[in-house]
């Protein structure tokens, strides 16, 4: 018997537990499948350690409570799933604009609209590009195991404070719902958390008043604040790229996948190696900043082709292509709506690439922007007699 430090926990609960250990004492949220265990865990545990759990009237209210609590200097978070995260976009933009740190968790489900409740990665664009209006990014971390749920939310709080930015955990229903052994991080010493002299805690008549604000009616002033923020982004891009490389030293075909999709891709890559194909796995851990240096490295190592495997219709593939910048072929394979590809499906794509064949038709469609080459039944369902 071994591994006594490890416990078996659900991904959603681990996010909550690790957040508390990272010093988070405030949680504001609204119920939605498949992340609700996180809120329930917080509701149970936070009051016992002097924290506050509050079920808000909406995701909009929740993110604005986060904004207020963060402006007041607290380590604070909210969590939701895809449709709810859309509602949080406004507040996250304000947090970015006012340079207020906080952690947002998205345990993704299928979309668009109400979509479904099964695992999905269809919010990649939303997370890495445009969760809210305006010129901003935020660190986006993508756990692929329950252990990483703990490790990355711990990191997310630190990144948020260090760079005064919202930070996101982009998980999915699979990692949120599953149990795996996890070694929980240690409790943060609350007195060692970063000072926040900018926070609105009351002047105590001893300093100028602090203002937490994102409004700048002067274009020059607004441009200045945005430039300052982008200087921070440049530093994040330079220092915070994270990824895992598996079997990439001599890989000619590199599968790129994150989160749940990377688990399936990992099996497929191993199976491909067993068949003598020089395949490797590049698993982005930070989706923003995107691990472009790792892409550079595997190309230097001899990668000729990338296959982006995602639980969506092709979103991260654009970042792979941008990073590869014409130096290697990039194709895509994905399933959407909550359907998970099997390792066999992914292996089939790798084998096609290894044989010099065109990758999957839907991959071509996404990559080339062309019409699906499959025959399309142009009859309406009425004409087909359905």
């Amino acid at each position: 018997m071994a591994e006594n430090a490890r416990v078996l926990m659900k991904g959603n609960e681990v996010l909550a537990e690790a957040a508390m250990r990272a010093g988070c004492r405030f949680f504001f949220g609204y119920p939605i499948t498949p992340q609700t265990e996180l809120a329930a865990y917080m509701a149970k545990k936070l009051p016992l350690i002097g924290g506050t759990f509050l079920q808000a009237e909406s995701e909009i209210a929740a993110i604005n409570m986060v904004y207020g609590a963060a402006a007041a200097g607290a380590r604070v978070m909210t969590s939701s799933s895809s449709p709810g995260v859309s509602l949080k976009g406004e507040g996250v933009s304000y947090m970015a604009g006012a340079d207020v740190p906080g952690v947002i968790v998205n345990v993704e489900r299928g979309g668009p609209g109400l979509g479904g409740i099964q695992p999905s990665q269809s919010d990649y664009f939303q997370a890495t590009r445009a969760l809210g209006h305006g010129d901003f990014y935020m660190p986006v971390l993508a756990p692929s195991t329950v252990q990483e749920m703990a490790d990355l939310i711990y990191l997310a709080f630190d990144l948020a404070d260090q760079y005064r930015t919202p930070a996101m955990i982009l998980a999915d229903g699979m990692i949120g719902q599953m149990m795996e052994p996890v070694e929980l991080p240690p409790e943060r010493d609350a007195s060692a958390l970063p000072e926040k002299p900018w926070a609105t805690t009351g002047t105590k008549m001893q300093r100028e008043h602090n203002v937490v604000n994102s409004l700048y009616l002067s274009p020059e002033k607004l441009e200045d604040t945005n430039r300052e923020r982008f200087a921070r982004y440049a530093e994040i891009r330079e220092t915070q790229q994270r990824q895992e490389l598996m079997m990439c030293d001599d890989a000619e075909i590199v599968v790129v996948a994150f989160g749940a999709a990377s688990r399936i891709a990992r099996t497929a890559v191993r199976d491909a190696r067993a068949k003598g194909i020089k395949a490797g796995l590049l698993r982005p851990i930070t989706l923003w900043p995107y691990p472009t240096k790792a892409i550079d490295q595997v190309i230097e190592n001899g990668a000729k082709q990338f296959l982006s495997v995602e639980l969506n219709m092709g979103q991260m593939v654009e970042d792979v292509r941008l990073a590869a910048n014409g130096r290697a072929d990039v194709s895509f394979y994905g399933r959407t709506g909550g359907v998970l590809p099997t390792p066999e499906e992914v292996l089939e794509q790798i084998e096609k690439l290894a044989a010099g064949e065109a990758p999957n038709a839907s991959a071509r469609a996404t990559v080339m922007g062309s019409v699906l080459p499959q025959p399309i039944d142009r009859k309406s369902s009425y004409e087909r007699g359905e």
Partner: protein
Amino acid sequence: MAKTTTELLCVLSGFGGQGVLFAGKVLANCGLIDGRHVSWMPSYGPEMRGGTANCSVSLSVEPIGSPFITRPTAVIAMNQPSVEKFGPTIVPGGVCVIDTTLAMKADEIEMAEGVTRCMFPATKIAEDEGLKGLANIICLGKLWAETGFCEHDVLTAAIEKCVPPKKKHLLEPNLRAIELGINL
């Protein structure tokens, strides 16, 4: 008996309330105690609310890819729909433990070659033995007897770990149920 296998891909399925998620947790804890890679993946969504519940438990020496199991090496099926849904997916040579109390037509379901069907009225046996509600653990005991997915002391330790301190009085019946299943 205890022929420790390197990999167990088990789907546990039944009606909500039959304890398949709990039995899955015991199984997953066996792997945890063993220091193996483990995943436990429940079905989630509307079916939680009164329909069938199932979970996939993987124990492996290798890191686990998808925690959703499409080709299980073992199934514990505690009602007829579960046998129908998961029985045919079992790999050749696998094991299917069936509670015939609520899966009366289990022998009508086709399964791959060499799949061992262990059929017994677990719910009825549990009630007869004063172990009401522990048919799930009886089935798990039978699965252990068939596959030896861990050492016996690990199995016992996992049960001790899964019975919460507040329900300490349930430990003894759980241990009795697992032995009952092993010796069926």
